């Protein structure tokens, strides 16, 4: 996995992959490879979302009780 992959880049790549597949431009030779890539990106995004959510919740709960 790229060290400096961002959610943004990952999600954009996923959308391109999805579009390619939808328009059937992907050959069978590439299909597994691309799907593997997509899978990896999905995993990356999910992890990112999950960790971000955890972080957000942690920040929000830290803000919480002190609000007036």
């Amino acid at each position: 996995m790229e060290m400096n992959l961002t959610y943004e880049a990952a999600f954009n790549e996923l959308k391109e992959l999805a579009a390619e597949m939808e328009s059937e431009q992907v050959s069978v030779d590439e299909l597994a490879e691309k799907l593997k890539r997509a899978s990896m990106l999905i995993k990356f995004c999910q992890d990112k979302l999950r960790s971000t959510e955890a972080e957000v919740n942690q920040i929000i709960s830290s803000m919480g009780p002190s609000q007036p």
Partner: protein
Amino acid sequence: GHRYFTLVEKKEGTNEIVASLKAVAWKFGSSRIREFEKQTGQAFGNNINVLLNVSVSYHQRYGLQLMVNDISAAFTIGKLEMERQATLQRLLVECPGLVRQEGENLISLNNSLPLNMVIRRIALVGSSASAGYEDFLHTLEQNEFGYRFAVDSYLGTVQGEANAAYLAATFAKIAGSNKFYDAVVLVRGGGADTDFLLFDQYELCRQVAGFPIPIITGLGHLKNHSITDRLAHTALKTPTKAAEFILAHNRASEDRLKALRNTLIIKSLELMARRQRELALPLHAIIHHSQQAFLSRKDEYHHLSREVLSKSKALLNRRSSGLAAVATHLSLAPLRILSAEVSALQQTQHTLRRDAGRQLKDQIAEVSSMERLFRLMSPMNILKKGFALVSAKGYISRDGSDVEPGQEISIRLSAYEITAITIQKEKRDGDEFNL
């Protein structure tokens, strides 16, 4: 005793004697004359008009003589009154600046003068030997109040009508003495109160009327006042009464002085009391108002300081609410963003999964149809149905056009290959095999 005298007739308005006759009053006649003097208040002397009842007598030695039997008092009184009226009339006519008449009253310059409040310096006109003079001085000096007087005596004979000029001159001497007198006192001492003719004399009356110092008379007559009395400032019956008048006058002035002193004392005490009361007003007002002013300033201050602080708190609360609103937005937005991202990601994942499967299925189908196509095209399948594969000179003949009779051809069947020679060639339209 007997009286001897001469009766004269003067020429009108002069002293020129036109006729004279000696007369005598014997005992009875003298008693009548005394009665006359008593009734008229006038001495039987010179310069009076009389009405006599006489008897004429003649004596070789004394000659013709009238004996008085009786004398009419009424006649002389009338005459005297006429003379007085004449003097009065003359005064009114000749000295209008000094005398005038108002009803029964004679108003003279002298009796119009104000009397000094205190009579202390006195010019006393009288006869030194007379009892009246002594009475006056005694009464004045022996007073119970301790009043002191300065009396200058102007002594002389104060009787007999002939002395009118002398008396007038005495007044002139007082006026010219250059001394200050509060009053001139004219007294007539004791004796007979008969000759008041003197005080009706024009010269004296004029002097009295115009005299610049108030004149007080005490002439001692009991009956009617003389003209001098009427023109003088104050006329008293007797010298003693004149002295008493002066004492009473001074006493009255002193009483007024004492009253004034009491008024001054009372008023000054009242004034002090009032000032003291007055001072209490601003004192109380200042205490009250300064306390009020202070309290209201204090209230203002408390109100204002509370206002500043409550407004500060309100301001803080508003800021705090604003901050809370922003904080709420900020805490909700990230979760919304995240959940949107999750959906998008799931959507993409779903699309990928679906499209990848579909593409594989399509390829599998295509490869399958390709397989079927090749299987159809394989000659073995045709040969098994009884068809033959004809080839000439090594190539498969599709419609027989390239085969001539006599030509050797090879016929391939499903199990064998046959070599044959072409005998005949006949054209066919061949609709019978069309589907």
